[in-house]
């Protein structure tokens, strides 16, 4: 009788022709080599993502961003945009923007990459489903800054 718990014990050598780890030790997971007719393996290493790759959502585009669509740019959806035929991601954006929302917030709430969000927002604007409220001047005017200062001072 061999000792199943200690296959390497020289006193009880393993059965010839059977590698120790292949011997049935009764309990526990047992290594089983994949049979030749095994189903095709999963995606290769590095591709094991459960979600779509970002470039799939943007139809392969990685640039061509409108520089006017910044992180803080406010976006609001058009009434009626929800009845349009849209991809799930675009639909989610339209859904979210019933109230004006910043691009960064859309990205965070939908857990979508910032770059992808900006491209999709640009697409939706071009299709007339979104209003993107672009500011005219690059740097805020003194009056606006004064309002921010007063607003912050009132925070306790």
């Amino acid at each position: 009788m061999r000792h199943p718990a200690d296959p390497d014990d020289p006193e009880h050598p393993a059965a010839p022709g059977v590698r120790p780890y292949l011997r049935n030790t009764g309990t526990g997971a047992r290594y089983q080599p994949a049979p030749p007719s095994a189903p095709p393996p999963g995606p290769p290493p590095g591709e094991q993502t459960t979600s779509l790759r970002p470039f799939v959502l943007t139809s392969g585009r990685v640039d061509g961003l409108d520089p006017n669509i910044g992180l803080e740019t406010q976006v609001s959806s058009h009434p009626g945009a929800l009845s349009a035929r849209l991809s799930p991601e675009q639909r989610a954006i339209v859904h979210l923007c019933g109230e004006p929302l910043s691009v960064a917030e859309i990205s965070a709430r939908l857990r979508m990459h910032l770059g992808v969000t900006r491209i999709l927002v640009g697409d939706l604007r071009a299709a007339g489903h979104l209003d993107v409220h672009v500011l005219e001047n690059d740097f805020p005017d003194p009056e606006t800054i004064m309002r921010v200062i007063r607003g912050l001072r009132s925070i306790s």
Partner: protein
Amino acid sequence: MDFDPYPDRRVVGTARVPNGPQRTAPPVPVKIIVAGGFGVGKTTTVGAISEISPLTTEAEMTMEGVGVDDPGQASGKTTTTIAMDFGCVTIDQTLKLYLFGTPGQTRFAFMWDDLVRGALGALVVVDTTRIDDCYPAVDYFERAGLPFVVGVNTFNGQLGYNLDEVRWALAVRDDVPIVQFDARFRGSVRDALLVVLDQALDKAMKMRS
């Protein structure tokens, strides 16, 4: 201004936004950047004053990071995801302040151009034990002409060096304010941001005249 290129779409009454026919005019967004190295208290700073708990958005880091954030030879990876925290403060219904916390290292500079566009200014958060983390951010903001303030985060009220020593170490111009603040306290963060806004106001006045 509410330009509507598809006025007839409004007729589709069933798909109205929940708040009825009166669509909310979007607030004017302004932003301040909170920059600094890992672990200096950027997220704490944003969280201390934001009315929402800081949200995180992700951006791809592209070739800029290759060689710095080496994922190893076995990996075919050419991009790395970085996270950026942000929060906001509603000043009033027509004005909203956004705060973006961004890593301060050179390899994240690809996103600074986007961040800086239209920004009021920046608060560079410094931990005096790792002061060199913020050099790239300081360099960048100086070159971009963005008003910025160096905020020395006093962990537990301790300041390892006095502000003159920090100024010497950073070699910033004399007109760049260096303040000490505690990122955990709203009032302290507010005061630091007010210094940034003072700088922004100076710039706006100069631009006007």
